[in-house]
């Protein structure tokens, strides 16, 4: 019970100190931030050890029979090489490990971008045009909606076009009129999207603030009454 109260008080004061940033940057806020970075790093280190290294590397190397162990020797060696990154002189020894990390990471990103986003969004953009089985006048509404969204998507894509005209080999920085027009329309759609997202971010942040203030009230209430 006493420990619960202690933890609650810690949370209470931490909340107050962080919210003091509203009045400007101050020493207490900086102190809390540093403590926070330290604690989160400590917690992350523990979790990495217990949830990544122990079950995926150390335990198999210690428990598995030799033939199966060989599979884990490669990441073990690469992991050890990665430790050399701590030494400025020997850090080059860790490059192969970083290369593997980067290569696989890039492949995952490419796969996700092509099959997930690109194809997924193309499919999503054209799906409203599937009018089969749409009753009555709904098809007109759906078609109109589909056209607006498709047009908006195309214009937004066109806005990002990078190429520009050249004159006597000099970059004029200007684009063809068609792209300029499409880009202008695209800007409107992009601005609408960013505005909606901004409102969403504000809403989420406000919810967090409300929850914190409610917590402060809940801590103070019993003390007051």
């Amino acid at each position, binding site marked *: 019970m006493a420990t619960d109260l202690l933890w609650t008080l810690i949370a209470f004061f931490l909340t107050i100190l962080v*919210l003091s940033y509203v009045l400007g940057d101050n020493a207490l806020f900086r102190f809390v931030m540093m403590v926070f970075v330290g604690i989160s790093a400590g917690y992350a280190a523990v979790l990495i050890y217990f949830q990544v290294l122990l079950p995926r590397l150390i335990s198999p190397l210690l428990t598995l029979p030799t033939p199966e162990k060989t599979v884990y020797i490669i990441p073990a060696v690469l992991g050890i090489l990665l430790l050399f990154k701590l030494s400025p002189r020997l850090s080059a020894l860790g490059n192969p490990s970083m290369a593997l990390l980067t290569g*696989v990471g890039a492949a995952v990103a490419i796969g996700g971008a092509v099959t997930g986003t690109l194809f997924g969004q193309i499919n*999503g953009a054209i799906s409203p045009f599937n009018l089969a089985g749409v009753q009555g006048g709904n098809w007109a509404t759906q078609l109109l909606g589909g056209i607006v969204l498709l047009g908006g998507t195309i214009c937004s894509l066109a806005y990002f076009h990078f190429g520009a005209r050249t004159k006597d080999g000099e970059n004029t920085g200007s684009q063809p009129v068609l792209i300029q027009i499409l880009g202008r329309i695209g800007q409107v759609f992009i601005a609408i999207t960013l505005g909606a997202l901004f409102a*969403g971010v504000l*809403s989420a942040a406000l919810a967090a603030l409300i929850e914190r*203030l409610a917590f402060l009230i809940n801590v103070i209430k019993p003390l007051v009454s």
Partner: protein
Amino acid sequence: MSEIICPFCGFANSIEALTCSNCKKQLYDDVDPDSSPPARDEMDWLNDFRGFGDERSAGADKKTESIQPGEIPSSTDADEESDIPEWLVRIRALKSEDRPAPGENETVEPEEIPAYTPGESELPDWIKEIKEGDVPAPLEEPAGDLPEWLRSMAGGEEVPPVDDISPDLSMIMDEPVAEGGIQLPEIPYDLPVETAPDSDLDTPNPIPAYDAEDLVDIPDDLFEAIVSQPEVAESESLPDEPSTDAPEWLEPKKTETVPPDISEPTPSDSNQLPDWMFEPTEADAGTAAEPAELDFSTLDASLSAIGAENLPAGQSEAGLPDWLLEDEAGNFGSSAETQAGETPNLEIGQMPGWLHAMRPLEAAAPDLAAPIDENRIEPTGPLAGYQGLLPGEGVVTQYTRPPVYSGNTQVTDKQRIYATLFETLIADETRVGAAADEKSSTLQLVLRMSVGLILIGALLIALIINPGVAPSPNLVPPEAVVFYETVQTLTAAATPPRILVGLDYEPALSGELSTIANTVIQDWMTGNSGLAFVSLNLSGPALSQELVNLAGASVPTYLTAERVINLGYLPGGATALAALAVDPSRAAPASVDGIPAWNSLLLQGMVSLSDFDAIVLLTDNTENTRAWIEQVKPAVEETPLLVVSSAQAAPALMPYVQSGQITGMISGFTGGAAYEQLTQAQNGTVRGYWDAYQGGMLLIAAFMLVGSLIYGLMNLVRRSKKA
């Protein structure tokens, strides 16, 4: 460049200080704080150089066109005008006829302007591109802050493009200053006076000083050119006899010093100075020699006295650039006049600091050299009765501590004003974008504080009172309806469903998401569903536990220990999800406690993710949701993917909802409230915050509207003013 060391106590004072804030002694020997003219007067002569302007400046233009030597120094004191004897005015008028007016001077071609950019060749190409004079956009606004004379110069004619001027110049200065630079040709006027000392100065780093000169002292030089002229004229036209007023120690110097041949600059000179500076004009070639030689020796001596040669670079930079020494040059002139004794109104108190500095000890402590009385008889001591002895006590008692000299350049008011001008000129160039001045940042801080306090105050009131006036949403978005229906269908099934809950939100948003998810998890628990939690972030396992504890408290019949398993943290993000989609038992083999998870009662017999009845994703992160959709959804074609998202991620997830990749979604407090409305949940968690939330959102919207209107109108007014 921003502090002056007190020569008496060594205390660092601000550049504006006239007296030391520590010892309260006067910082400048040659400036009397009381008699120093106000800044406006200092600027008058600058107004005189406008090509156009108000009546006063128009009058001044006339003056400059036919230089009335007596009138030009009115920059320092207009009253001197009346003191000049009539005969002297006549002589000056005659002199002015021989001399071309500054306006008529041939202008120097831009090529002639030396570009002192030593390190330029080392700079990367694109920095040179920047230097090619494309002026940062926001520089127009700061122009409003520029001094009057500089803006008036902007209107000047025969101005070559900025690019024509040295890149260094165009890089640092905006247009008006670049145009100001065109006044350079008029400098040669006072060259013999100005350049001779400069050419021999052994300053640690003369080149940057010349950069500064190129930039800022243009009108200043022009001023000096005109100021120095009458002095030269006087010293030429009047009999050169030693002045009785002049201190003795000056006289031998005058005879000893050898005048340097200014009309034939030495190679070393030409290295340091542009050629045009050595163009001799009939008017001053010979005449200027005398004051020049005075300046030469005295300035040299004064510098050696204050040890200027030994100044470290930093310190010399901290001091003022060479061009600011022109005031000393002016003072040399005045010292010449002092010898000639032609200007009775020049007070001895105006003797410049460097002149004080080079005085011999006698000058500093005059009593020291007391006259020796030959007939004096020693009254006391072992030499009592002897005659003509040197008085010892004189030296002992009258000895004074040698004066302390500041290592920093001593600056006059005028110099300080130019320095401040120079600083303001380059201030806006030291950063790209709108200059964030002190005032605006303070206003911003005040705005931030007041908005924060108002918002927090309003929310606290709403939370404490909790009036329940905010109406619950009756219009429910279709994706929320689908979410609700899916939950109802699965929980109503004969066999309790097994749900994979992906917890993918940061502690930062747990306030929002745990509040929304609480009701949903409670519904699953009410349907006795099996819940397997897996998390993509480090804090996930702890947050899952917290969420289960919160929801479980509301459903006492639910056996948490049997029906819930926490698979913990899934490292590797999207790659881990891909692995999870292929073989879940391999990707997340154990629970957070280290117990093999897939042999547990809950997950027994499961081989793939499609064995789960539904996947519920609690997320605040668009990218990770994308990863779930891209990596996991294809592996569980038929299994519904339900998303409880933060309001910040919802708009970005809508495309996936529309494309059917997300089956159902509730997002933010609004979605949570809508879901509670659908489930008719009594005292739902979102409902508790609903008043504060709705009030807060509307308050923020109001703030935004008012702010946009105010700043929008201000922009319109500013534009119309510009137009």
